[in-house]
């Protein structure tokens, strides 16, 4: 005996299609213009450095590769500025900015997910502003 195929209710199917489409419907913002919050290390640390760099076997508190711990703003500032990876007012001399560029580093960082230009620019501007611990 042939069983009819089981189907989802119509409303459920529409909801599923809408949910799928929403996955593609976002993602376009405006061009980058420096914002007040971009000049704060606490903002850079929480939105860029910690999610991108403080992963388990890299710059997390329990691994600290190359003696760099980026798991929170205080540790990150101490590692980068205290460790001379950042030279305040001189982004071009700071090794931190070089590790994001293909031809300037042995392995471009982060070695799994490259940082977008906008994030690199925000950090470059922060260094050139004196890398304040704010």
């Amino acid at each position: 005996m042939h069983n009819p195929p089981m189907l989802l209710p119509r409303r459920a199917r529409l909801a599923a299609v809408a949910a799928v489409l929403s996955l593609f419907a976002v993602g376009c913002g405006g061009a980058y213009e420096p914002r007040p919050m971009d000049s704060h290390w606490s903002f850079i640390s929480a939105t860029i450095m910690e999610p991108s760099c403080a992963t388990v076997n890299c710059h997390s508190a329990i691994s600290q590769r190359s003696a760099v711990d980026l798991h929170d703003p205080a540790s990150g500032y101490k590692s980068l500025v205290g460790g001379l990876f950042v030279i305040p007012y001189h982004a071009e001399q700071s090794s931190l900015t070089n590790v994001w560029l293909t031809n300037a580093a042995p392995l471009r960082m982060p070695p799994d997910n490259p940082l977008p230009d906008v994030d690199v620019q925000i950090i470059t501007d922060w260094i050139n502003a004196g890398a304040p611990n704010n």
Partner: protein
Amino acid sequence: MRRLLFCALAAGLFILGFAGRAAAYPQFQFSSGTTRCSQCHFDPAGGGLITAWGRDESADTISRGGDGAFLHGVWTPPSWVALGADVRLAGLYNNAGGYLAPEWDFFPMQADAYARFAFGEQVSLYLEGGIRGDTRPPDSSVGGQLSTLGDRFISTDHYLMWRAGATGAYLRIGRFYAPYGLRFVEHIFYVQRYTGFDIYNQTYNLSGGYVSEDWELHVTAFTPPPTSFPDQLQSVGQRESGGAVYGEKRFNGMAMVGLQARIGTNSEMTRYQGGAVGKVWLEPAKLLLLGEGDFTRQVVTVGSGSAGVNQFVSYLGGTFFPVRGLMAGVAYERYQSDLSLSGTGLNAADVEVNYFPSAHFELLAFGRYQFFGPSANDPATASMFMLQFHYYL
């Protein structure tokens, strides 16, 4: 027989000397004929040590055959004990740029051992431990803390649970992932990495919920391990305390919709997350479609005030099961770290083929290509290919 037992025990001891994470295969929901994740896993939300049902399914449905029981059925633990272990070896090609790229590596990726002790019908203790895998050589810097086996030991899951039965209410306390979102074996997917559920992000939780045949609800309060705890019990990622809720409704044994929310906060920032998960099993096509999307509002303390960004992360994939023991999947991922800025979106295209020649064994090929907006600096891409051998005891 004695020789086989000796080999199996030796393998087990080797694995105990190594370790990793609680893994799950969300692709098996519906496609294997099983609708609840907790049918195959002791964890009420899925992942980690598998049940006797899960072991049977691994042989009869998922792989090409064999005996899925612990130690291939050579020895059966007492009914109040369940044991297991996972080991993964991987070969990797990775190219994200740099003048030494691409990287080639072969490394032990995971070695975990699990034990679950039942005290009567409703109370159990779950313990997991192992060694952190690492793609790169040990770091000799003063900060490098992965130089000895003891440095690498970690226990990500250990909890005490009361559970009314296979379905019904439960309550547990300890360390584990709060139920939330898709929980793939590979931790690199954006929906895990950027929502607080990357590898070793497990928190200490008080969690409760209810699991029925066609719906389930999980509510969790979480906090990071105290800083006084040794590294072996520490978690990785942003140290937040907060709560998470996940609810799932299943339809006709072939589809589900999950809704979820999470709030995590610390002295520097607060993240508000909300999202949805969906799966549809298309039996005639042997195809499972699955997806997740999450919006995040991250509010950071800046000076004497605060500033926020809106973020979005998603996964959309399809997995095809052409014959028993084989599954092939493709997926598209997107993570935008700031929705107000163009060029902050990261995209990934994934291809994955898993072959299960018999129970206990898996071969995996995984390819990933990542790309984002036009870059003035460099080619804005990264590629990765991995071959993996997986054995579980």
